[in-house]
């Protein structure tokens, strides 16, 4: 029973940790499937984290915060689009520039706006995403009624109740949005005309152009979707998981999401499993500092490094082959 409770708590933590990865990973998936490499996921998340927290702090409304976060992320997306689609610049360099821009701008604006040293004031009440309690789930309300703590009630519940109340219920609404985006992405990419064209533009833009469809338009659409998803990811970090923005709070999650994208070989369902796996590794590392496996102690650093190691293994071709979209990273030049 003890083991089961721990397991469910670790899985619960996994879901929270995997959500920002998943949103960023799907964001990258749209962009890269359309042939635009995007290593600026990190920067967009960071920018959105700041603006969502700042606007939520000023207005007291988390939904306005979310809108502001998505808008700020879209501005960076537009920048990336103009640099790499319109002016056919190097996509990697544009992405690096976006990361630096976000890392500097957020702290600068935060300092001149709030004078709290590059952070936003703490959010409370309507400025934060509340956790959504499912009907009949054991939550804070039950604890209040019975006058006992949630963990006490939970330890008496049966397995189904525990999974329902701890694992499925009680997350922020953005978590459910993130997981619903997975089938939605699959459907858009593989069952709609837009998705077919989007994938084609990443494989062979000349063919799409010949068919009379705008390559530039499609790529801009993909980059915009990427911006929206990164914006949600950033808002989730700052207004749901945390109560405010702290400098560099994305802490490399955009890069782990890129690793997950490669690990998933640019496929939506696989992306979800990859993000959950990476989230699980983090959750285990957080829960157990050093894991003792029959005399062999695995230090916590190994768990932290595993996402990157796994990605290298995949890239090296030991487990299948990761082939990126063929036209990825190359600006499209129409022949004259």
């Amino acid at each position, binding site marked *: 029973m003890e083991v089961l*409770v*721990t397991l469910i*708590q670790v899985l619960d*933590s996994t879901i*929270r*940790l995997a959500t*920002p990865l998943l949103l960023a990973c799907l964001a990258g998936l749209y962009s890269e499937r359309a042939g635009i490499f995007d290593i600026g996921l990190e920067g967009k998340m960071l920018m959105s984290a700041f603006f969502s927290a700042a606007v939520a702090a000023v207005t007291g409304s988390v939904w306005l915060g979310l809108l502001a976060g998505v808008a700020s992320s879209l501005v960076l997306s537009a920048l990336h689009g103009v640099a790499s689609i319109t002016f056919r610049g190097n996509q990697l360099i544009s992405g690096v520039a976006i990361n630096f821009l976000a890392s500097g701008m957020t*702290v600068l604006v935060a*300092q001149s706006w709030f004078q*709290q*040293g*590059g*952070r936003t004031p*703490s959010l409370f009440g309507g400025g934060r995403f509340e956790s959504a309690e499912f009907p009949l789930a054991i939550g804070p309300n039950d604890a209040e009624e019975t006058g006992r703590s949630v*963990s006490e009630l939970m330890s008496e519940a049966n397995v189904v109740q525990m999974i329902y109340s701890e694992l499925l219920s009680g997350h922020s609404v953005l978590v459910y949005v993130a997981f619903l985006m997975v089938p939605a992405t699959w459907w858009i990419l593989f069952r709609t005309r837009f998705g077919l064209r989007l994938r084609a533009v990443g494989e062979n833009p000349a063919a799409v152009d010949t068919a009379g469809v705008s390559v530039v338009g499609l790529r801009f659409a993909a980059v915009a979707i990427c911006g929206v998803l990164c914006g949600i990811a950033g808002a989730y*970090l700052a207004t749901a*998981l*945390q*109560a*405010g923005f*702290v*400098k*560099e*709070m994305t*802490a*490399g999650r955009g890069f782990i999401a890129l690793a997950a994208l490669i690990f998933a070989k640019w496929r939506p369902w696989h992306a979800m499993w990859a993000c959950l796996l990476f989230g699980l590794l*983090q*959750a285990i590392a*957080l*829960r157990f*500092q050093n894991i003792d496996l029959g005399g062999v102690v695995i230090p*916590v*650093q190994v768990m*932290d490094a595993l996402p990157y190691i796994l990605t290298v293994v995949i890239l090296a071709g030991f487990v299948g082959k990761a082939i990126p979209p063929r036209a990825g990273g190359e600006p499209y030049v129409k022949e004259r």
Partner: protein
Amino acid sequence: MTLMKSLMGAAAAVAMTAGAALAEPALIFDLGGKFDKSFNEAAHNGAQRWANETGGKYREIELQSEAQREQALRRFAEAGANPIITMGFAMADPLAAVASDYPDTKFVAVDVNWLDAPNIRQVSFAEHEGSYLVGMMAAMASESGTVGFIGGMDIPLIRHFGCGYAQGAKAVNPDINVVANMTGTTPAAWNDPVKGSELTKAQISQGADVIYAAAGGTGVGVLQTAADEGILSIGVDSNQNHLHPGKVLTSMLKRVDVAVYDAMKAGDDVETGVFTMGLAEDGVGVAMDDNNKELVSVRMSDAVTDARKGIINGDITVVSYYENDSCPALQF
């Protein structure tokens, strides 16, 4: 006339900069940044206090990367700043390289005590003594018999904090369970509140009901989650009681502000050598104010006062992690 004017203006400007550069102190913040609500902010407060009291000016820089450390030291030394105050253990190596090139400049290194140079004032703090006191308070406030410690980057200094904390907790309750976690092994561990939150949740599920965060910006996440989940937390370095009034048990004060203020006040006559600021020197302590008045019982504050006296006169020995790189009360 206009030529004369501009010449005079230029001369005045030169005279002013020369005058200002004579004994202008300089302050180098570590990577956490000036407003980390913790270690570096304490230094900033100390410098501001000096500036307000004396009307003096000082120069400052917030380091953005490891590569800037030596460069910043040399720039300030070349510009004639004196003394040059550096924050954090990571400045030790650059200081060792630079200090001998500027024998007339005094350097002040906060959190460093192992260098060998005639012109460096090295100030370190007895963090284990202050942590011992908050550890006692944690153990007395805990109802579950489990208390937590969340460190930032896994370095000996942070283990030093955790070690004192565990000893204090065990002094009150020998059977207490101390759960200790480190956020990471890279400097990113100082600024990852999301990970801080998850660590807090993990420790709560292991039964912890008081958690001490010695983790810079990551600690903001720890304190936030502790407040959300209805348990107590303990802040570090600066007084963090006000962040969540009534939910932060206390803060382990590290009077970096005093160290910086003293150095600036002494100016270029600052005494060099190795100095340790412990409980006796009020270099470390616990924060008591209106925000945590309700949480601290009389029994608790009496115990802390007694233990403080005991440590100062040598009745209580708090083992330092540095002594043999291990802790008698806690396994990391």
